[in-house]
């Protein structure tokens, strides 16, 4: 897992081999010319996107994104608005074609064949459904258009949600519509389900029900799921693995438990963050006149008795990475948005 350092697009000036100085450490950085095979602690590569890019007009929505996603897991894709999450998911679902580079999902190019489409389920943002068609018609559509359709599963899920199959999809609430869209994706029995901001528009109760439904599917069928969200709390609840994407760069990637274990908040007398021992990387630092508060990443214990060491939540970690990316982002913004 690494942010690529390959340059694509001649019009854009970027340092040719800019390695991320603060990239995730579990993965070796790829060589500038040829990405290495993705070796992940958690399994075989599922969706390596080799330096894929997507441009709309002159604006790159996603640039130089190299990413590999472990199989059989719930992999949360976190990041602020505009980070390229939706573009990445639509590329993976085959709805978009990369402007530069290639994208490989489950060993094939997404969207190119019916067989490959059958292996990937996708729930788009705002969960589009045919408003005039009933729930039952949607399920029939699924059975007609998908070779592995599981009508029994679909019917059971709809009944479990207490929905009347004769009801029109246009009359459903946001949460019910999201559940219908998830049902359509799940009953297709794909190997990978991509969820684009699945809970963004739901109230807390509907959100919990939706995530519960998602967990049932994963537990029952061992499907890999890739939900994206800008709400880390939701991802923390369901994800085994977390990817933080900022401005189409991977800022952090790892098992949720490892991520939680390797980050600490230190509070102590004011000092220069640069004076920390090797192996402790400062992600975020704030200082008052007398006190320093640091969020650090370390694989070992913090031995300095001057620090008060506390664990941090996933939310805090993600926020720290986002604000760091924003602070350092000024330097590379011109590379990401080409304005002429």
């Amino acid at each position: 897992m690494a942010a690529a350092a390959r340059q694509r697009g001649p019009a854009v000036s970027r340092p040719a081999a800019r390695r991320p100085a603060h990239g995730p450490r579990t993965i070796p950085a790829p060589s500038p010319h040829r990405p290495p095979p993705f070796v992940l602690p958690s399994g075989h590569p599922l969706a390596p996107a080799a330096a894929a890019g997507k441009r709309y007009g002159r604006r790159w929505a996603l640039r130089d994104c190299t990413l590999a996603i472990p199989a059989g897991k719930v992999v949360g894709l976190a990041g602020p608005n505009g980070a390229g999450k939706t573009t990445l998911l639509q590329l993976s679902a085959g709805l978009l074609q990369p402007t530069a580079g290639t994208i490989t999902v489950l060993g094939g190019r997404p969207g190119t064949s019916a067989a490959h489409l059958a292996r990937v389920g996708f729930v788009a943002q705002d969960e589009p459904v045919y408003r005039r068609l009933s729930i039952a018609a949607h399920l029939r559509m699924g059975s007609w258009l998908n070779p592995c359709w599981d009508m029994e599963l679909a019917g059971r899920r709809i009944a479990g949600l207490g929905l009347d199959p004769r009801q029109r999809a246009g009359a459903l609430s946001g949460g019910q519509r999201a559940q219908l869209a998830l049902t359509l994706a799940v009953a297709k029995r794909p190997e990978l389900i991509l969820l684009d901001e699945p809970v963004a528009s739901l109230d807390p109760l509907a959100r919990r029900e939706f995530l519960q439904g998602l967990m049932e599917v994963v537990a029952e069928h061992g499907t890999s799921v890739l939900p994206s969200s800008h709400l880390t709390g939701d991802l923390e609840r369901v994800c085994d693995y977390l990817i933080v994407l900022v401005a189409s760069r991977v800022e952090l990637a790892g098992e949720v438990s490892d991520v939680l274990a390797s980050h600490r908040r230190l509070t102590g007398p004011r000092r220069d963050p640069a004076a920390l021992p090797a192996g402790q990387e400062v992600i975020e630092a704030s200082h008052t006149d007398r006190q320093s508060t640091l969020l650090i990443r370390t694989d070992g214990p913090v031995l300095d008795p001057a620090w008060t060491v506390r664990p941090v939540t996933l939310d805090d970690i993600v926020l720290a990475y986002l604000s760091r990316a924003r602070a350092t982002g000024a330097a590379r913004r011109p590379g990401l948005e080409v304005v002429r």
Partner: protein
Amino acid sequence: MIRFTWLQARAQTAVALAALAAAAILAAVTGPRLLHLYAVAAACPAGADCGAATTAFLSSYHWLQVAQPTVLLALPALLGAFWGAPLVARELETGTFRLAWTQSVTRQRWLAVKLALTGVAAMALTGLLSLIVTWWSSPLDRVNLSRLSPGMFGERGLAPVGYTAFAFALGVAAGALIRRTVPAMAVTLAGLTGARLAVTYGVRPRLLTPLHATGALVLPAASGPAPAPGADAAGPGGWILSDHVINAAGRVIGSNGGIGPNGEIGFATSHGITRLQGVGACPNAFPAVSDRASQPPPAFAAAAQECVSRLGLREAVTYQPLSRYWQPQWYEALIFSAAALALAGLCFWRVHRSLT
């Protein structure tokens, strides 16, 4: 995919079939009487007063005579706007393309099935309505022989099927390009109108080399219906493209049955000699006409006609004869169908390439 296409198109198909059934029933109820009235008028022996029978025939179901061709004229536009334009545009507008294109069906197949099924249904619908209208109007067309004229050509026969194919494909392509249903509808209507006008006046006259003929210049009679200019030369039902009046030397001196830029035929008498204005003195004698007479006597009209004939004035027309009716019908159906195929190709390109 076929079943899903049907599922989505049920409502619009039901509406169209209901309308078609209504038209068929209306034609079945009124058609036989029209045929009967035609038979009565046609059986009227020559020399007898046939005015009543002819009027009864020609004025029967006047509203239907107007409505049926108008519906057929409008049908391609309606199908293009309401079946074609939303086909892709509505999916793009509501975001449901993200649902449709992530099922286990490639979007090429999705588009192919939708285009083929809906398009063929639209063409079949137009074909059936055209059949009904053509059959219903056939007694009238036997009398009113202007099926080739621009006003009636597109309201009978095979051409409307081609117009529908074109309008439908134009609607789909406009929807795929604009991504909005309502503007795509507007583009469809404008595009169809423009294409129809361009083909009617720019292409159709040149599809087949027009025939040339010259005939006597027949002056309008003092009373009764005036003959259409050039009708004599072009034969019954011919579509006259140009009509020039030529003098004995073969020089063009007027058009559309008239002489000079204003297209009038005027006689002026002075000193016992009557001159045909713009041509010269008439060789024959004219009866005296009182200045107070509101209308020249029949003898005057006969003398005028004789003058025109003896001066050697003739009409030269270029025209398409009625016997060629089916050739431009086929050509236009094929031209518009070919354009529809090209537009369908544009749809595929758009859906495959540019929407990604």
